């Protein structure tokens, strides 16, 4: 690649900054431009539902890199700048306001935006969702004002927000349409453990019911459910998942299907156009199918993998996907390739909330969830990657070192 070439990165968050940093680490001495819609330097989102939301962390601590990091590496920051479209033919970004930015290669790391459903009253003041630091600040202000809160949707974000609001002393009611929190990810048995975790911490849980409307005069005053419940509240937070932000490549010929479709080296079907992070529907070589994940670790690692791929030094990106969720005193971790399972093997105690649960398919470990068992969860990653049958009795036996169940790691 010519030294004078320009690599543009659309999206200045976790994935984008990881890619920019990796380009410099790899010795790329051309121009690197990081374009982000938000005004802040790249910051870390996991604290937004936890420590930051509880008021225990200043904004500066959420910055992924100090400001000088970008200056020293001559990474150009174009913040508060919206990319309207990637002009593939002219190799330029069209920016809001009319500016253009020419590039030789572009990485799309636009991430996701919160899903919204046409629920009456969703736009009432006092009804919040959480994705950005600005969102977190609005919810934080509402928490400080206090009162009764309703959380709509007990996925990971909803569950973390419910926990944080309880920790701040609010009265919290959670509404979840499935039988348990995190039901789709974890199934009923483990979902019940998470339900108990929240009930034990004082969350009123409404399961198997859904929000029909947010009501109030000029501001949310209650949530009405499909089954006719009316829950009075001063604030409500909904967490209904995200959708990938792909408009910048709409109509350009770049393939979009549940995100931007890329191969195992972050390449789209158009040469010179790459994608990584939450927006990338990537081919995973270990399980042999496309997948899109919204995990912190994938943002870091796939951003770095994309950078190397742009420089012609790509390797198949074959990380075992992994994430954590901290709720109260429970460090929940999950790893693997969320898929159908035919058995769940438990190691440890569900009642004590100190265990691993292995999701099995045809004798293999497809994925694993752990509460307060991070070391063993990490030891499970090579077992998942190996895709071989494992003896369930040995998985379940806490006296068996999980490292002995994994085939020897391949040399790096």
């Amino acid at each position, binding site marked *: 690649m010519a030294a004078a070439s320009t690599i543009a990165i659309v999206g200045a968050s976790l994935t984008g900054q990881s890619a920019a940093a990796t380009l410099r680490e790899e010795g790329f001495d051309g121009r690197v431009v990081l374009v982000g819609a938000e005004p802040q330097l790249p910051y*870390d989102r*996991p604290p937004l539902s936890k*420590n930051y939301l509880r008021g225990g962390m200043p904004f500066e601590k959420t910055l*992924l890199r100090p400001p000088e990091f970008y200056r020293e590496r001559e990474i150009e920051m174009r913040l508060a700048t919206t990319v309207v479209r990637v002009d593939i033919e002219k190799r330029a970004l069209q920016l809001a306001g009319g500016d253009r930015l020419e590039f030789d290669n572009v990485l799309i790391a636009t991430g996701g935006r919160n899903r919204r459903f046409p629920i009456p009253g969703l736009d009432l003041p006092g009804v919040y969702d959480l994705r950005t630091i600005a969102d977190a600040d609005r919810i934080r202000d509402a928490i400080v004002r206090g009162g009764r809160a309703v959380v709509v949707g007990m996925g990971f974000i909803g569950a973390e927000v419910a926990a944080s609001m309880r920790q701040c002393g609010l009265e919290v009611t959670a509404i979840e349409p499935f039988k348990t929190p995190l039901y789709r990810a974890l199934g009923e048995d483990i979902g019940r453990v998470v339900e108990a975790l929240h009930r034990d911490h004082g969350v009123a849980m409404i399961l198997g019911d859904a929000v029909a409307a947010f009501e109030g005069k000029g501001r949310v005053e209650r949530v009405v459910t499909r089954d006719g419940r009316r829950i009075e509240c001063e604030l409500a937070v909904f967490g209904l998942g995200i959708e990938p932000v792909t408009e910048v490549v709409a109509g350009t010929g770049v393939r979009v299907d549940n995100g931007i479709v890329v191969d195992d080296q972050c390449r789209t079907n158009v040469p010179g156009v790459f994608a990584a992070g939450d927006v990338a529907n990537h081919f995973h070589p270990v399980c042999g199918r496309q997948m899109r994940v919204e995990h*912190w*670790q994938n943002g*870091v690692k796939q951003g770095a993998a994309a950078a190397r791929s742009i420089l012609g030094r790509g390797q198949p990106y074959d990380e075992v996907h*992994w994430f*954590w969720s*901290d709720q109260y005193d429970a*460090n929940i971790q999950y790893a693997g390739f969320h898929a159908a399972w035919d058995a769940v093997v438990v190691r440890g105690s569900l009642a004590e909330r100190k265990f691993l649960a292995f999701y099995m398919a045809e004798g293999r470990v497809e994925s694993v969830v752990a509460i307060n*068992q*991070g*070391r063993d969860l*990490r*030891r499970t990653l090579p077992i998942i990657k190996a895709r071989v049958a494992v003896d369930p009795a040995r998985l379940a036996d806490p006296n068996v070192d999980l490292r002995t169940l994994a085939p020897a790691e391949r040399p790096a």
Partner: protein
Amino acid sequence: MARFVTVAKADSIQPGQIIKVEIDNFPVAVANVDGTFHAFDDTCTHEDCSLADGDLVRTAVVCPCHFAEFDVRTGAVLAPPATVPVRVYTVRVQGNDLQVEF
């Protein structure tokens, strides 16, 4: 005034193992890397997790909560989400006494 404090018997920590000790009620982790001992703050600089509960992979300790990694010899961050190095301490072995300068 820094002084050496005996924290454990040297032969009680196997290669590849990390233990947690307390010095003046302050948690310190001690790792055995192929017979050489390294001491460092037990609390991860990212969030309140005990590094002694994590794995030792060659000279790296992996935090069990969020998989931040530190070099046990220098305290340097090897993997995020941690950004701040962990403090390391001088270690010596006197006879079978493992001592940490604190």
